[in-house]
């Protein structure tokens, strides 16, 4: 598709008082995904990531009996394959030459803006679709109330206090059994699940959520729930017990659901990853035959939920 003078006749004559160039004057949001995702680089056609669970708890060694031998447990593999994203624009020599306002010469800026949207949307869809199609290393959806543990049902038998947390033996949730809207009680439920978090062999581990990830529509509610000195929505003197959880919130402008909400640990504790294979490279050339100008941008990246630990989600009700 070429851009030619006939499509932009008003750029060919002086006299326009003002031209509102959206890609210059409507400011895009700062990149949001780097606040959520661990941004890495990769150097090959794909990255594979593995998982291992440790050894079981130490059992009794009875008198004169041998110690108990055990093994570590190898989990599955998750593969990240970068895709190439590219966009280009071609404008006739005459259009570039006759544009009286320099608008056409700024098309590469618009291409950069296009890149930026795609760079944001792909990782955010890991979260948006984490209840349905996006799967983590254990082969089930990223947000799931029954993530199978590598140690199996035995580990949830001895892991302390999981009875009220899990929905099935041998699993651990990072999603409510029944999705719930953002609320005081729902945040309590979420923090309780994090407090009871165990590893693949049922040993309690530290995963403390630091931030809620919410759609713009939930920002007022989040302020009330996390900022009120008293218990939100009550006329009693109870303190707001959520304040002690030291939770912040982030508004995600690329979240697609107004009711879904999420909780994240600090980035070093979770495994949502954005992997650059090649950052955007802009190039341009003149076509020898037509003297048309071509601008092109290519980038390669992927996003992957390498593991489900450290993130939590509820898909509204």
């Amino acid at each position, binding site marked *: 598709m070429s851009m030619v003078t006939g499509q932009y006749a008003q750029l060919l004559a002086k006299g326009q008082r003002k031209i509102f160039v959206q890609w210059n004057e409507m400011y895009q949001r700062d990149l949001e995904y780097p606040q959520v995702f661990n941004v890495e680089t990769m150097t090959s*056609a*794909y990255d*594979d990531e593995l998982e291992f669970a440790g050894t079981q708890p130490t059992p009794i060694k009875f008198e004169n009996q041998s110690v108990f031998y055990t093994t570590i*447990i*190898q*989990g*599955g*593999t*998750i*593969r*990240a*394959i970068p*895709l190439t994203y590219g966009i280009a624009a071609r404008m006739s020599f005459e259009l570039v030459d006759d544009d009286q306002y320099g608008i056409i010469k700024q098309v590469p800026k618009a291409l950069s803006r296009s890149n930026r949207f*795609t760079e944001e*949307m*792909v990782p955010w*869809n*890991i979260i948006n*679709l984490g209840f349905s*199609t*996006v*799967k983590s*290393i*254990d*082969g*089930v959806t990223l947000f799931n109330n029954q993530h*199978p*543990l*590598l*140690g*199996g*049902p035995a580990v949830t038998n001895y892991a302390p206090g999981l009875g009220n947390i899990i929905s099935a033996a*041998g699993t651990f949730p990072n999603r409510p059994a029944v999705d719930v809207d953002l609320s005081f009680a729902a945040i309590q439920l979420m923090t309780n699940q994090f407090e009871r978090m165990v590893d693949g062999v049922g040993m309690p581990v530290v995963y403390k959520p630091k931030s809620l990830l919410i759609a713009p529509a939930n920002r007022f509610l989040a302020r009330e729930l996390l900022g009120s000195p008293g218990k939100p929505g009550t006329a009693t003197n109870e303190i707001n017990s959520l304040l002690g959880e030291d939770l912040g919130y982030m508004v995600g402008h690329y979240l697609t659901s107004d009711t879904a909400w999420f909780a994240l640990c600090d980035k070093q504790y979770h495994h949502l990853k954005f992997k650059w294979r090649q950052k955007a490279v802009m190039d341009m050339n003149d076509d020898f035959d037509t003297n048309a100008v071509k601008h092109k941008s290519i980038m390669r990246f*992927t*996003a*992957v939920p390498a593991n489900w630990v450290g993130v939590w989600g509820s898909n509204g009700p």
Partner: protein
Amino acid sequence: MASLLANHTELEVVRTKSGNTEETDSPAEKAGQSFVKGTPVQLNAGVLQAWDGATVNAGIYGVAAEDAHNLASDGLGFPIPFNPVGFPGTGTTFGKVPFQASAVNIPEGAPPVKGLVVVFIANLDTVFRAQTDNNTGAATTPTRANRGTAYGLTIDANGHWYVDFAKTTVGTNTVVEMVDLDPIDGSVANARILFQFTKAAMQIVL
């Protein structure tokens, strides 16, 4: 009756008339496909499968540039807009992951699978090459006199397709038209020839 040769070279692109890069597409792959590189392929309800060998009118989308991946479901892993390649990213796994029935072990070096197949599109620009043979078992030696003649394609016992000189009934069993002899093979028995798909056989005329 079998062809004279049991195995043939695969269909491949040799050049384009325009001099441009050959036109390709990357449609989602139909589940359970096991065709090999160089197989004529067709779209069926939007997903790609091996050509059925019978549909000669609007039946061939192009030639597969890679082997099929025997996907468990149509387009498994195919990246929808603004999404990465889906789990598991390969068709090659081994063993089982304890207590995680849906997880996979991927051996190092397993080919990446994106749920799609790259296809060299059958169009009026791309020139392909394939070996000649005859499904009656008769000897086949193409000559320059065969240029412009329409032929059919037949699959051999090894999954490779050849230009079948026994199929010459236009509208019934022909899908390609000979463009020239292969400049290396020349006019020898079972030589490779250069051909284009006929306009009638093209599933989508581009």
